[in-house]
């Protein structure tokens, strides 16, 4: 009996400890591309040193990140799908949208290049060739910004995916990293953001086959979650983060992040 009482005491104490942890933090719902590229690991310590606010990033696909914010589980969203972000705003879940930075998408493919698209500058032409040759193609399929961009590009190329989908089109429903792993294992083509590709270590037989098309431009936006919808949102701290990210200091930090000699993200907040 004595032992049971002692155990209960320990359990309650141990359970109470976490709640005494840092209270000065915000939760940012962002995408796997920003996290896995290492950008946040670079710029967030600079922000925390400056403001004393800890930033907790939950990395999901853009669609999931926005849904998470709709449920009130985040203070700020930092994603890359303008159409989805504007819908989010229109529904009243965000306060204001600010453009932060851009990077670009690239088409990755196997060295053997069965669809013969390497070196091209036209993404829609490349996609048409991939579809015609029924070469394996991996899609993220997870409502992410990258996935949304991929679907947009198929549409611009004039291809109705539903009609032509087959064993060649592999919808993996996963983040950028896992999707690249799958593409590497399957020797498949895949649309990726440059940041994740540059920090991806399991390339195996894959290489960049198409880049530079203006339509591969990928814009990131940041929004404070609307306290009118979710009163518990940390407005002050969240706004501080939003302000910092579009401030000259934040923009400089973004530009400073490089892998080797390559800059991954290009700041373009409106002054």
């Amino acid at each position, binding site marked *: 009996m004595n032992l049971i009482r002692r155990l209960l005491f320990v359990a309650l104490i141990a359970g109470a400890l976490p709640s005494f942890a840092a209270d000065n933090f915000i939760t940012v719902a962002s995408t796997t591309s920003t996290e896995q590229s290492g950008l946040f690991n670079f710029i967030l310590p600079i922000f925390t040193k400056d403001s004393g606010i800890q930033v907790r990033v939950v990395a999901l696909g853009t669609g999931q990140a926005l849904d998470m914010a709709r449920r009130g589980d985040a203070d700020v969203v930092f994603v890359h799908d303008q159409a989805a972000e504007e819908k989010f705003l229109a529904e009243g879940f965000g306060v204001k949208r600010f453009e932060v930075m851009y990077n670009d998408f690239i088409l990755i493919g196997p060295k053997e290049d069965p669809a013969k698209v390497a070196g091209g500058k036209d993404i829609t032409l490349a996609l048409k060739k991939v579809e015609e040759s029924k070469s394996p193609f991996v899609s993220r399929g997870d409502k992410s910004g990258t996935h949304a961009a991929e679907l947009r590009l198929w549409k611009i190329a004039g291809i109705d995916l539903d009609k032509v989908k087959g064993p060649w089109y592999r919808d993996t429903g996963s983040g950028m990293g896992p999707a690249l792993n799958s593409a590497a294992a399957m020797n498949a083509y895949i649309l990726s953001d440059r940041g994740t590709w540059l920090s991806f270590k399991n*390339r195996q037989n894959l290489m960049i086959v198409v880049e530079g098309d203006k339509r591969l431009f990928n814009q990131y936006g940041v929004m404070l979650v609307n306290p009118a919808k979710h009163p518990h949102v940390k407005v002050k701290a969240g706004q501080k983060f939003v302000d910092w990210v579009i401030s000259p200091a934040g923009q400089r930090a973004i530009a400073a992040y490089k892998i080797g000699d390559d800059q991954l993200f290009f700041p373009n907040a409106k002054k």
Partner: protein
Amino acid sequence: MLQADAHLYDIVGLSLRVSFLAVIWAALAGLPIGALLAVGQFPGRKTMTVIVNGLMGLPAVVVGLAVYLLLSRAGPLGEFGLLFTPTAMSIAQAILVTPLLAALTRQIIEDAWLEYAEQLHSLGTKPWQAAVTLLWDTRWSLSTVLLAGFGRAISEVGAVMIVGGNIDGVTRVMTTSIALETSKGDLPLAMGLGIILVALVLILNAVAHGIRTWAAVKFK
């Protein structure tokens, strides 16, 4: 490299804390349930036993989803702000491990009950008293049950990923780190972490074996 090691210690330390707390909660619920299922005489006992055994096969990712929905701000327990905290991960692990502890405890207590039932009935012991007595009497076997539960808890990845969010420095544990490094394609690092995790679980099993052997000799 040294800096990476400090980070690694944090991740291992967090994994241990989260699972330790989870097993304590699971034991507080699971051990009494198991004991009462073994010695109790109440209607529906057999049905409950079947249910508890079945719950051992509960898919972890479903538990993760359920806990996520409960703890989300949009959910019934949202006001506590527990989502994406180590506590949420302990909760998910505890829910997963409780049926395991209950079922294993029931088996152990049932076997001991065969030996003790008549004598305890003769002394006028009531079912809840018998449960407490047997829980204490089989404490060495039960300690290995707890270690088994701990091993299951610390190996969990799906549920803790969902309710923890794998936040760097806050809710990133060994299993979610392995998942992350794998998805980033850094397979050697993922493998390294995996080896550490396996070593931890093996050490646990060795300790459990040692306890069983020592207790068998000392107490018979």
